């Protein structure tokens, strides 16, 4: 793992993001305003939170497809605990987040204990958790939350949306863990060569278990913010979230084969996608056109990544 090479991908991505911001700002005078940028930060917080945990997952060479379903399940449980079981709302939130975290732990348990490939394990729990969410809710929405609860999704502290503070703190914490701690180094080692990591005395299974549990926790946290932002609970919440998350992480330079990736890269990837979505919409490009552009950018980033790989190999 050479720091210079990692830096190069992120430098390129940073330059690309700045160019994109500049171009989009010139295309619409409503893009580069503090109000719009903060609002975009609000909209990307849920995907962002999950993407931080997903960076760890993908760095170990794994994948977690069930994050969107965990979000949906947590949202439904929050509503059911509060409305149907009559728990006080703070207790319902706490309990729902614990359940979401536990759902992540189950992913980790299946993957490490039974040696199931993460793709298969989380593909199964993707269906399982979504099915549970639909079954528990009986496809009914829970509404009528008290006003104070909307602070998490709609409130501001010092003019900045609440969830952006949360995302900022999470970025710092996850950046420090991945970049500066033994746990982070273990994560890279597992992704680079799991067998070697095992023989080096790294506790591979427990590290993985922690990481998948954290993915569950972040999805659960995102669920609380999401419910608060849209003021209602539905069982189809978070459908397709996993794809947005993985797109952001991979665009950020994290190798899908593991062993490579940084939190800064993920943040840049998320910012670039959100800026493209918003900026193109503001300059009059329709939704289908925006998806095409994002697809092209992703292919471009993968090609750049492949180029680096070839350089390394040659």
């Amino acid at each position: 793992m050479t720091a210079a090479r990692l830096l190069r991908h992120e430098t390129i991505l940073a330059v690309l993001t700045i160019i994109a911001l500049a171009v989009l700002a010139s295309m619409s005078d409503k893009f580069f305003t503090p109000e719009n940028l903060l609002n975009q930060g609000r909209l990307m917080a849920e995907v962002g939170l999950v993407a931080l945990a997903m960076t760890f997952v993908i760095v170990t060479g794994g994948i977690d497809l069930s994050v969107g379903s965990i979000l949906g399940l947590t949202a439904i449980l929050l509503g059911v605990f509060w409305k149907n079981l009559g728990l006080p709302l703070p207790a319902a939130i706490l309990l729902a987040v614990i359940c979401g975290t536990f759902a992540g732990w189950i992913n980790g348990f299946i993957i490490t204990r039974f040696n199931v490939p993460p793709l298969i394990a989380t593909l199964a729990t993707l269906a399982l958790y979504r099915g549970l969410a639909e079954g528990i809710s009986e496809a009914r929405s829970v509404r009528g939350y008290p006003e104070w609860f909307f602070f998490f999704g709609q409130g501001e502290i010092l003019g900045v949306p609440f969830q952006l503070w949360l995302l900022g703190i999470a970025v710092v914490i996850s950046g420090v863990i991945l970049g500066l701690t033994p746990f982070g180094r273990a994560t890279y080692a597992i992704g680079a060569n799991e067998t070697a990591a095992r023989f080096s005395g790294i506790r591979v299974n427990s590290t993985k278990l922690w990481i998948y549990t954290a993915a569950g926790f972040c999805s659960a946290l995102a669920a609380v913010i999401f419910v608060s932002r849209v003021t209602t609970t539905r069982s189809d919440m978070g459908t397709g979230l996993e794809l947005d998350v993985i797109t952001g992480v991979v665009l950020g330079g994290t190798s899908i084969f593991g062993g490579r990736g940084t939190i800064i890269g993920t943040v840049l990837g998320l910012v670039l996608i959100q800026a493209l979505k918003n900026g193109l919409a503001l300059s009059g490009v329709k939704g289908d056109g925006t998806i095409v552009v994002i697809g092209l950018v992703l292919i471009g980033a993968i090609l750049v990544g492949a180029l680096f790989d070839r350089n390394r190999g040659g």
Partner: protein
Amino acid sequence: MKKLTLAAIVGFGLMSGSALAASAWTGGDDQPTNPLSCDATPAAAAAKPYDGGVPTNAPDRNGKKITVVDVPKLIGIGYFNATSKGIADAAAELGNVDAKTDGPTKANIDEQITFIDNYITSGVDGILFAANDPVAIAPVLKKALEKGINVVGYDANSTPDARQWFVNQAEFNGIAKSLVDSMAAEVGGEGGVAIVTSTFTTPNQARWIAEMAAYAEKCHPKLKWLETVEAQEDNNLSFNQATTLINKYGDDLKGIFGMTSVATPASAEAVTQANKCGSIAVVGLATPNAMKPYVEKGCVKSVVLWNPVDLGYAAMMVLRSVADGTLQPGATSVKAGKLGDLQVINGSEILLGAPYVFNKDNIGQFDF
């Protein structure tokens, strides 16, 4: 186990039925019904104060060119292509509206909210929407109102205070009247009829059945209801249930109502395969494309739904009237171009009119 559950459900249904004076027909709900008159007289609108929202400091847009964005539940399906066409038609006819349709490719609440949010930032004058969730969409629509944007819904409503007006495509009693009238016309006013529905507790279907029972009792007392069967919204199950009805009641069965867009074509298929075309009528809610084969063969004579092109057209006309200031809270009707005067109901809703009956002559003009 499944049978036991079913028995429990039926048992429970019977118990609640005796306790709550449910609809005369199984599958209806226990809400009060309001059958329309047997001729075409429109129902008197119950006076209800305006309960829609009001935009903050909306600029004077009277007669000025406005930009409007239409954000349906999703794009790329026939139904919303049709509403979008209606909106474009109305905009072309008005001449002072720049309208476009944009939205998510999946019926996803989060994406729809993001689309609307971006269009608020880009500074449109008006927003048309069909909500994926009435409550989830409310905060972003309220934000639009706060920015002085005119907001009108169609097809699927939001909470009333999050938009100004909602164009309602059909009321429950209107759909019920169309279905029962069509059936009565086809079976000659008397005979046994059965219903294939989704489940007894599905809200819309239960409401329709309750209204149908009330209307049939009032206007077509010789229609004899035989049975309501549940078929989820499953194509295969609907077909099997309809076939069972045909075998069970034999010549007593003169007609089948299909209550969902799945049940109606499946019932038509069951009647076709039983060689009962002409002796058992099928009337139901469905989209024209699914019903074209049966209508063209003459096995099904009437399919009830609303005309989505007219729905989009009406929504655009209402938005223009709101922007011009000609439609104010408290109005009882609104002019909607070629559709004439549309009635205001429920405080802040505008009724599109009687449901549309698709038949052999007009079904070819629709593609959704």
